[in-house]
């Protein structure tokens, strides 16, 4: 008899492993708008299937919770049932023997706390509170609501100009987004159920790269209404473009020398070439938008002056002030703000970092941008110091990987404590306290000081990239409501009790993404139009290709390739390579056309105009 044997999986076990992966992908692809109670019961069933059966709360309790929640779904429950679900779940949470039990109960508790109204709606009226109005996942998750299945189908047919026209209906900056959009549309792509999300941004890039010059639609007849847009970033430009398209007379006031906002003064050329940005802005302005650069709306002129001169105002000033880290020695010569550095690069005032030993503080995209820019500007050594772990960084993973590939060293779990100066007041070193990752608070593990001595990171330059703030004071002074540093605007971009003044983008949400700024501009344009007494429709005459009934066997996703790290780190040219024709054809044909299949064919599949 053998004492031990080598464990191999049988067919059933390997199949179950496969099914786990299928389920993971399926959950990723879970479309928005599902009944949360129904989902909660389904999750609970999975949890209950995992119970070993030893302890009473888990073995019996989870089953009873399931019965009670099914009663809610089936309309056999009362409001007391909801209380009983909560009490039972709490009892299980505090008494079950292992995580299989208590975490399952915790999920139920979270459900009750998170959407009790939904439980009540089922009990009282036998229905969900959620509406079935977002059946196409990618469209629903695009803040601007771009017709993604539509343009992916157009790419598949080789109709690239039509694809660009279709995108512009909802997002006037397809070229910019083709390169730097964070593509929330891909997150819940139904294709995940089969293999992997469609590379939507990559396909958009293929479309814009191959569309040639696509003319803008003709603007509506002039209305004679004048609209001021404060801030020439992506949100301001988008609002201005749509308002101009509607026939209004728009003037953009821009504080800096050039338009573009963070696209120019925050994102380095190697991610978004200036030529692409300039061309996109130029195209959009060609519809007839006035621009006044180097005008700061603050004291003179102030927001009230502007409001008086125009029929409506859109405030889209973004988030451009750098946050201070607040440690000793921050005033040393050699401490550079990331925002300022990127701003001067945006205006072609490029510093020389040859031979420098640089430490970047921060873990966001801006930290990666300055670190990678510093490499390109000749720095000897670039270290990125972050107080959490690499997976906790807010920067996109590909940005972090890119920085590492280009030679940046990432020092995780290091909290800066002070900056050491030499006799001349110059940076000599950054001191940091090693951290240990700890308790999860607010959904994120928080670091705390590790039982280890501080470390001295010798360097001559420290770049601080720990977030941006909003220059909201001069607006607040003139009556614009500001809460926790951001301008307080309503969901339709209006400002409470101040008719005719609208606000959106980073200055309302705090630093976010370009597509959210564009979406805010779109929303503002629609509501300003409405405010001015019009109901202009933005539409397109592009015809969407018919669906194909091809088989759709599982097929890998085409990812974007990048230029070699060794080559690209010496210049500011675009890093990312576009798809080949072959790749774009294959990738675009992976789309499952959720605008047609499922509920897409019936309602909510396509919004033709807004």
């Amino acid at each position, binding site marked *: 008899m053998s004492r031990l044997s080598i464990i191999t999986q049988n067919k059933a076990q390997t199949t179950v492993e496969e099914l786990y992966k299928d389920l993971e992908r399926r959950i990723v692809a879970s479309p928005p708008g599902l009944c949360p109670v129904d989902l909660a019961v389904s999750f609970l069933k999975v949890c209950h299937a995992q119970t070993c059966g030893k302890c009473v709360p888990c073995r*019996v309790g989870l089953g009873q919770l399931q019965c009670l929640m099914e009663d809610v779904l089936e309309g056999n429950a009362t409001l007391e049932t909801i209380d009983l679900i909560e*009490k039972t779940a709490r009892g299980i949470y505090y008494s079950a023997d292992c995580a299989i039990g208590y975490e399952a109960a915790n999920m139920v508790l979270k459900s009750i706390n998170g959407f009790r109204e939904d439980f009540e709606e089922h009990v009282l009226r036998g229905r969900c509170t959620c509406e079935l109005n977002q059946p196409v996942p990618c469209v629903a998750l695009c803040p601007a609501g771009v017709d993604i299945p539509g343009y992916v189908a157009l790419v598949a047919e080789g109709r690239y100009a039509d694809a660009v026209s279709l995108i512009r209906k909802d997002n006037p900056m397809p070229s910019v987004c083709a390169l730097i959009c964070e593509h929330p549309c891909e997150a819940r792509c139904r294709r995940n159920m089969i293999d992997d999300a469609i590379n939507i941004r990559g396909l958009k890039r293929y479309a814009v790269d191959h569309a040639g010059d696509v003319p803008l639609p003709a603007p509506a007849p002039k209305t004679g209404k004048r609209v001021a847009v404060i801030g020439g970033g992506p949100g301001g430009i988008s609002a201005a473009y749509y308002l101009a398209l509607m026939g209004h007379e728009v003037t953009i006031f821009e504080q800096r020398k050039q338009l573009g906002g963070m696209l120019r003064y925050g994102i380095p050329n190697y991610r978004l070439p200036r030529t692409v940005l300039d061309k996109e802005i130029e195209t959009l302005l060609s519809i007839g938008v006035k621009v006044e650069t180097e005008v700061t709306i603050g004291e003179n002129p102030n927001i009230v002056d502007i409001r008086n001169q125009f029929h409506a105002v859109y405030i889209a000033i973004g988030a451009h002030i750098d946050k201070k880290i607040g440690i000793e020695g921050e005033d040393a010569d050699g401490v550079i703000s990331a925002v300022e550095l990127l701003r001067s690069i945006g205006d072609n005032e490029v510093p020389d970092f040859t031979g420098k030993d640089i430490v970047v503080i921060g873990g966001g995209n801006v930290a990666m941008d300055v670190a990678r820019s510093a490499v390109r500007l000749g720095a000897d050594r670039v270290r990125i110091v972050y107080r959490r772990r690499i997976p906790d960084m807010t920067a996109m993973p590909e940005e972090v990987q890119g920085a590492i590939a280009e030679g940046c060293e990432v020092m995780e779990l290091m909290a800066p404590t002070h900056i050491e100066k030499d006799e001349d007041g110059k940076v000599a070193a950054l001191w940091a306290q090693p951290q240990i990752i700890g308790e999860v608070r607010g959904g994120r593990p928080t670091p705390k000081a590790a039982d280890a001595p501080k470390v001295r990171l010798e360097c001559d330059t420290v770049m601080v990239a720990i977030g941006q703030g909003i220059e909201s004071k001069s607006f607040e002074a003139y009556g614009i409501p500001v809460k926790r540093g951001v301008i307080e605007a309503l969901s339709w971009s209006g400002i409470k009790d101040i008719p005719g003044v609208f606000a959106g983008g980073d200055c309302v949400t705090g630093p976010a993404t370009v597509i959210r700024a564009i979406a805010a501009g779109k929303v503002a344009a629609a509501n300003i139009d409405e405010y001015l007494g019009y109901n202009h429709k933005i539409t397109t005459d592009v015809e969407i290709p018919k669906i194909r009934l091809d088989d759709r066997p599982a097929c890998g996703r085409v990812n974007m390739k990048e230029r070699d790290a060794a080559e690209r780190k010496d210049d500011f040219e675009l890093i990312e390579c576009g798809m080949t024709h072959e790749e774009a054809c294959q990738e675009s044909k992976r789309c499952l056309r959720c605008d047609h299949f499922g509920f897409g064919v019936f309602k909510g599949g396509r919004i033709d105009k807004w």
Partner: protein
Amino acid sequence: MGYMMIDGRKVEFTDERNVLSVIRKAGISLPTLCYHSEVSTFGACRLCTVEDDRGRTFASCSEEPRDGMVIYTNTGKIKKYRKLIVELLLAAHCRDCTTCVKSGECVLQELAHRMGVTNVRFENTREIRPLDTSSPSIVRDPNKCILCGDCVRACEEIQGIGALGFAFRGTEAMVMPAFDKPLAETDCVNCGQCRVYCPTGAISIKTHMDEVWDALADKDTRVVAQIAPAVRVAVGDSFGLTKGRSVMGKIVNVLHRMGFDEVYDTAFSADLTVMEESEEFLERLEQNENLPLLTSCCPAWVKFVHDQYPEFVENISSCRSPQGMFSAVIKEYYRSPKNSGGKKTIVVSVMPCTAKKMEAIRPNSFTRGKQDTDIVITTTELIRMIRNSGIEFETLDPEACDMPFGFSSGGGMIFGVTGGVTEAVLRRMTEGHSKVELDAISECGVRGSEGIKEVTLPYNDTQLNICIVSGLANARTVMERVRNGEASYHLIEVMACRRGCIMGGGQPPRAGDRTKAAREKGLYNADNVTIIKKSDENPLIAPLYDGLLKGKVHQLLHNQES
């Protein structure tokens, strides 16, 4: 070693193995359904969940005591959860309490009452499953199982058998023998410890009270009872009398009142066992054959040897158990028409033991092919019959046993406790009977509740090595040593139940440490007050050998080849 605060009071702890024990020591009867100090901690019922000063909740059975701990056992939160757990258990449980065999003794029922569960807010999700009545001793009712695993651990850890185990997982989990075989087809030795540990009616004694009532109701039947030694110390506390005190006289009285024609003390046939077993032992010593001699009075142990150590079957004493000897003698006595007066005789044996039910129907315990012991009831069934009869047991005067077999020595009495058989045999093998000589025997190491005791005594020219075992897991340890040649004994006394028959599978359950000690003391006291300590000096023995047993010793007192 240290201190902890329990509900605001400082409590010292020493070697308690968990917080639960410290809490109980502090006088708080924290409820549990799956905790027994004799078996491993399982942590399934979660009823002993407590809260600490940081609001963390944990099962106190599974937590080691630490100095400075601050524990609350009765916060509002904890009380709610505890009640919820009982409610959840009831939701998955048969709720026919009034007709349940365990009614009144069920821990779950008691806890539901204690927690104030007056309404179960959950749907009853249990599926009805068939009972396993295959065993002559035990009935398994899966509908009443709460999966506490007590029986599984008792069978595995104390008895070393593992006849029961967990099958399936999750909601489907069940306790059952491997492959869901009927219990009778497993290695179950019928010891009944699973039933002692079971807090509900999921494992119960297969009862034979109705058969007894029927026999008593039959005018043409003489019903003779024999009462095992351990029974007398386990009945009184059920009727409000002192724990562990022998109530033999009252039992004789109550049985007479119920209609038993004759009532005897099995200690009498224990004296016969001592005679026969001593003789057998001396013979084997002389011939140096089939040593060690393995005692045969415990049927669970005998089955254990047959199942697990077949190569040692020849070592088992050929003597019948006291139950078997007595029934054979009674039946032989009434075989004579002069004695029987034309009546049929039924022997009812009242035992602390569930395995005795199995022994009674074991063919090699039959005489002339016929079953001698007609009905075996356990102490628990006796108590129920007394309650059923309505006779106020506690007020009864003691009565003496009947003749012609109504006298026994102290040696026969102590059969009910581990080491008792050995002690009685040693008394027999010792020449004198002065207090000094008898005390020397009782102090040689035969007494005490340890599961394995070794005694070495000079006998003639040699040293006798004797091993006294209780609990079959201990027996397995000893037998392995013997088999591997690591130990060598002349005599091994084994009682399947820990501490012997006083803790038998048929005794009233839920006996704590104090009850155990009281039962043991009760039996030794019964011995103390007996004038005749040595079995061979029982005045009824010699006439029996000269009379009824003449020429029939082997036929009546030894197991038959089957």
